[in-house]
């Protein structure tokens, strides 16, 4: 048998119309021609879990900051003995990663360093985490204070008379630098605890695998999982507001949630409405700093900026409550199930094993909430503020004629944005027009066309020859890239026709009609009883989780957000199926087995009265054909692709 490989990035032609795409990105992010031998010697996997669609030039900040900070903690702060960071490249617009091992000889010397550094964090977890809260909230406040206004025609007289000595141009440049620096800082904080959370989890995981050979990954996850996480607060807040609206007799005022101003004004004017508005305002900050995307794209919609989203979810919850449904997550059942599982495994252990089991589980449970909650603070809250500020700057420069559309800036690299800003302030200073308005509009449109072209082609799941066995702990844990997964990608799966195999991410078995969703804008198509099929999901899709019976994703491991969220909502899920969302069509009858990780298309099932099916199919096709047409999408109210909240 010959060894199977993925294609080399050097042998892949870009999509038609995407020629010259490499110039959109920084030199260090692309596979350089003269590095062929070096780059082909590495195995690269596509991180479509976090970057499922083409990354525009400005958006590379997401993976550059996230993945370099992940590496920084492994390599320089904690000295994790066997694992350095993860190299990243962009290829045909998609993000590829390659884990970096530690040379054999350096592993042992790193052990005492790791123990001292990581040990300190584990011993002082609560104190350091409290400190972390302060640090990240301070950073978010600093980001929030930034503003990007057009420069005035003349310097304020007071700045002259006070002898300030600098102009607003200086401040504008400094604020841009600060925007980037504060975001980089937030991403460092993101990884301050995360990698430690994973290694503690991994320790408990390995122990369970040793004493109970073959124990399902899900069993370990369920024993560790928390149930009252900050990540679920936004959704819980909506449920509370729905209940309050019923209690106060305000349910008739949610007729036009697409118009949030009118709806909120109507509520405020109602007799008991002020009480509800107070509760709404309390919930809003910070819990509506929540995106239906994943925080990595400029067009991600945040609840805070699109109040029609939370209002619409509240309206749905009210409807479900009125029809007698329960909308709360089955928290008591989840806790009972977690305790049952833990107890039943515990009973099988010898006293020594039990002591180790309890110790490891205790540590894993202590550190685990961070693994879920950080996502709210960084991807949702910090990045929500970051993108709002970046859009503000882009719109300001649009007004100065730098580009035709409000989103033009995102087609520039972040260093080019600084060049453009310097061009702007120079023009302002000199009193002659900046050059940008004659250069960028055409260039932005050229780049937009390239991004659209790249968007037409799906990425390879991986590049080059995979290693015989995947051992790198983070690749396994975060991305769920196992040797079996790679086999799947290479078409060596022995799954029969009409069946998809993935990770048994959340237990239970369910049947129902498929609802293929490839963009968060399609979420409104989801009907009661559907099985959600998507490339990836975001934690903020919680409000629709009460409607669906099961979830199927293309991407993601046991610790992916789809998996975590489904476990928290007590719903079957199969993740990491590879291609299910491309091969399943809306309306097909599916059987999802979250115990065994299989998804089966039930061919002869007659679906009756599923009127929405046709609409769904149409919606899906619509989305695919327009996937490349980012210009229209972005103009048209910041369309979001389906994205998954990130750990990394």
């Amino acid at each position, binding site marked *: 048998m010959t060894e199977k490989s993925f294609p080399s990035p050097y042998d892949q032609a870009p999509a038609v119309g995407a020629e010259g795409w490499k110039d959109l990105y920084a030199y260090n992010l692309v596979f350089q021609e003269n590095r062929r031998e070096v780059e082909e010697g590495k195995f690269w996997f596509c991180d479509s879990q976090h970057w499922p669609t083409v990354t525009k030039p400005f958006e590379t900040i997401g993976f550059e900051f996230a993945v370099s900070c992940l590496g920084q903690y492994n390599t320089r702060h904690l000295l*994790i*003995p*066997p*694992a350095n960071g993860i190299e990243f490249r962009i290829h045909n617009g998609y993000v590829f990663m390659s884990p970096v*091992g530690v040379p*054999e000889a350096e*592993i042992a010397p790193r*052990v005492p360093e*790791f*123990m001292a550094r*990581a*040990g300190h964090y*584990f011993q002082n977890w609560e104190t350091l985490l409290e400190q972390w809260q302060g640090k990240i909230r301070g950073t978010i406040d600093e980001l929030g204070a930034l503003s990007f206004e057009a420069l005035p025609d003349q310097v304020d007289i007071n700045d002259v008379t006070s002898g300030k000595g600098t102009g607003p141009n200086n401040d504008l440049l400094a604020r841009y630098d600060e925007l980037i620096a504060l975001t980089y800082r937030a991403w460092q904080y993101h990884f301050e605890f995360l990698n430690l959370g994973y*290694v*503690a989890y*991994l*320790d408990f*995981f*390995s*122990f369970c695998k*040793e*004493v*109970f*050979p*073959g*124990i*399902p990954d*899900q*069993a370990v996850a369920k024993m560790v999982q928390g149930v009252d996480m900050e990540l679920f607060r936004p959704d819980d807040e909506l449920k509370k507001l729905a209940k309050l609206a019923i209690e106060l007799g305000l349910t008739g005022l949610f007729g036009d949630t697409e118009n949030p101003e009118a709806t909120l004004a109507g509520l405020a004017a109602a007799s008991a409405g002020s009480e509800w508005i107070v509760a709404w305002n309390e919930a809003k900050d910070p819990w509506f700093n929540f995106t239906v995307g994943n925080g990595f794209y400029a067009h991600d919609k945040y609840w805070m900026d699109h109040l029609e989203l939370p209002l619409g979810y509240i309206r749905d919850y009210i409807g479900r409550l009125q029809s007698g449904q329960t909308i709360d997550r089955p928290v008591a059942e989840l806790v009972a199930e977690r305790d049952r*599982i833990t107890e*039943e*495994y515990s009973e*099988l252990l*010898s006293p*020594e*094993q039990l*002591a*180790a089991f309890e*110790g*490891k589980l*205790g*540590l894993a449970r202590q550190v685990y909430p961070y693994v879920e909650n950080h996502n709210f603070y960084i991807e949702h809250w910090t990045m929500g503020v970051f993108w709002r500020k970046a859009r503000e700057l882009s719109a300001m420069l649009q007004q100065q004629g730098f580009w035709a559309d409000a989103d033009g800036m995102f087609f520039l690299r972040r260093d080019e944005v600084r060049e453009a800003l310097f061009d702007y302030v120079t023009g302002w200073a000199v009193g002659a027009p900046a050059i940008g308005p004659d250069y960028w509009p055409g260039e932005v449109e050229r780049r937009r066309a390239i991004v659209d072209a790249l968007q037409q082609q799906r990425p390879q799941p991986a590049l080059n020859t995979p290693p015989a*066995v995947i*051992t*790198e*702990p983070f690749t*396994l844990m975060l991305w769920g890239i196992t040797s079996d997964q790679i086999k799947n990608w290479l078409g060596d799966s022995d799954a029969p026709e009409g069946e998809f195999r993935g990770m*048994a991410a959340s*237990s239970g*078995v369910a049947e129902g009609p498929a609802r293929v969703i490839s963009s968060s804008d399609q979420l409104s198509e989801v009907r009661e009883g559907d099985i959600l099929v998507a490339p990836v999901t975001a934690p903020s899709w919680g409000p629709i989780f009460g409607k669906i019976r099961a979830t199927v994703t293309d991407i993601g491991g046991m610790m992916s957000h789809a998996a975590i969220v489904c476990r928290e909502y007590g719903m079957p899920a199969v993740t990491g199926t590879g291609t299910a969302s491309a091969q399943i069509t809306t309306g097909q009858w599916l059987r999802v*087995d979250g*115990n*065994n990780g*299989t998804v089966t298309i039930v061919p002869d099932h007659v679906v009756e009265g599923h009127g929405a099916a046709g609409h769904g199919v149409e919606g899906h096709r619509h989305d695919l054909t327009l996937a490349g047409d980012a210009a229209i999408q972005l103009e048209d109210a910041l369309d979001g692709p389906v994205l998954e909240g990130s750990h990394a």
Partner: protein
Amino acid sequence: MTTTPYIQFFDGANSDGSGTPSHELLGGKCASLVALTQAGMPVPPGFAITTASYDAFIAAAGIEDDIHVLLAGLDSDDVAEVDRVSAQLRFEIESRPVPSDVRAEFVAAYHSLQERFSEPVPVAVRSSATAEDLPDASFAGQQDTYLWLTGIEDVTEHIRRCWASLFTSRAITYRLRNNIPNEGLSMAVAVQKMVNARAAGVAITMDPTTGDRSKIVIESSYGLGELVVSGLVTPDNLTVDKIMLMVVKRAVGSKHAELVPDPANAGLVELEVSAERRVVLSISETEITAIATIAKKAEKHFRCPQDIEWALDRDLPEGANLLLLQSRPETVHSSGSSAARADAAPATPATGFGIESITRSLLVQAGKA
């Protein structure tokens, strides 16, 4: 005589009002079926013809003294003589009428069983020996199981055959060699709704290869379970996590043959399994979970690892078609369970926790330790 009943339904109250079924009255097989039924297990419905029935039959037939005379002084090595005595005793038993009071209770029980179904169901008749009366007591089903019986007369005849099986040459020789007295010898008989097995097999509530008690190992094949129990087919082999009830390992067995009921001949017929049915699992995922659930329940009830026999009845509706035929303590591993577990213990016992153990896990995971 009035205090000891001739009949006990598996789902009826114990005759002595106690919490445990009387082994002496019911024999091993029936006592176990009663216990399982009382534990809420889906045992095929039926009843025991108690040892009191046998005792009443022997007394009414007036052959008790003849039995003792014939058996007295028998030499276990004299095969011909043993065979002759065996044949005579069995003829005596099979040709005598059942006393009318015993028969009346049996007829009432038989009708009561049939009334539970919308149409007449065939039954199986099995001997249920008390502890040491017969060799291979725990495998009693093999030689005195009569399947697919319909009608009172047919069933009565086979009940007498079960009684007579106390005196097969093999049984007589066994008692002689083990100095088991013939006094007080008795036999209960199980009359049970026939299971029309689509698939059947066994399940052990531990991994017998490692002693890992967090697993349930299921063996399954088409038709009745006899071919699996006797090792005549290679069944599907499934390892299920006992706590999560998830399949963690599966191997499709070759399952070349299946034993299915042959109503025409009141027995079973062995058929070849088609090539396409051989390569797929004989049971569905849902059925695997159901079997594991029952096995787990049996273990919990009896408070030790169990070895169960189960069947999926094709006459019963989906979801209510899994039947538990037998559950007994798993003896191979549980007798030396601590040793077995010690063997299965990991080479590098992962005791301790905290940073040392985290470091070791990282190195092990990366294959560096």
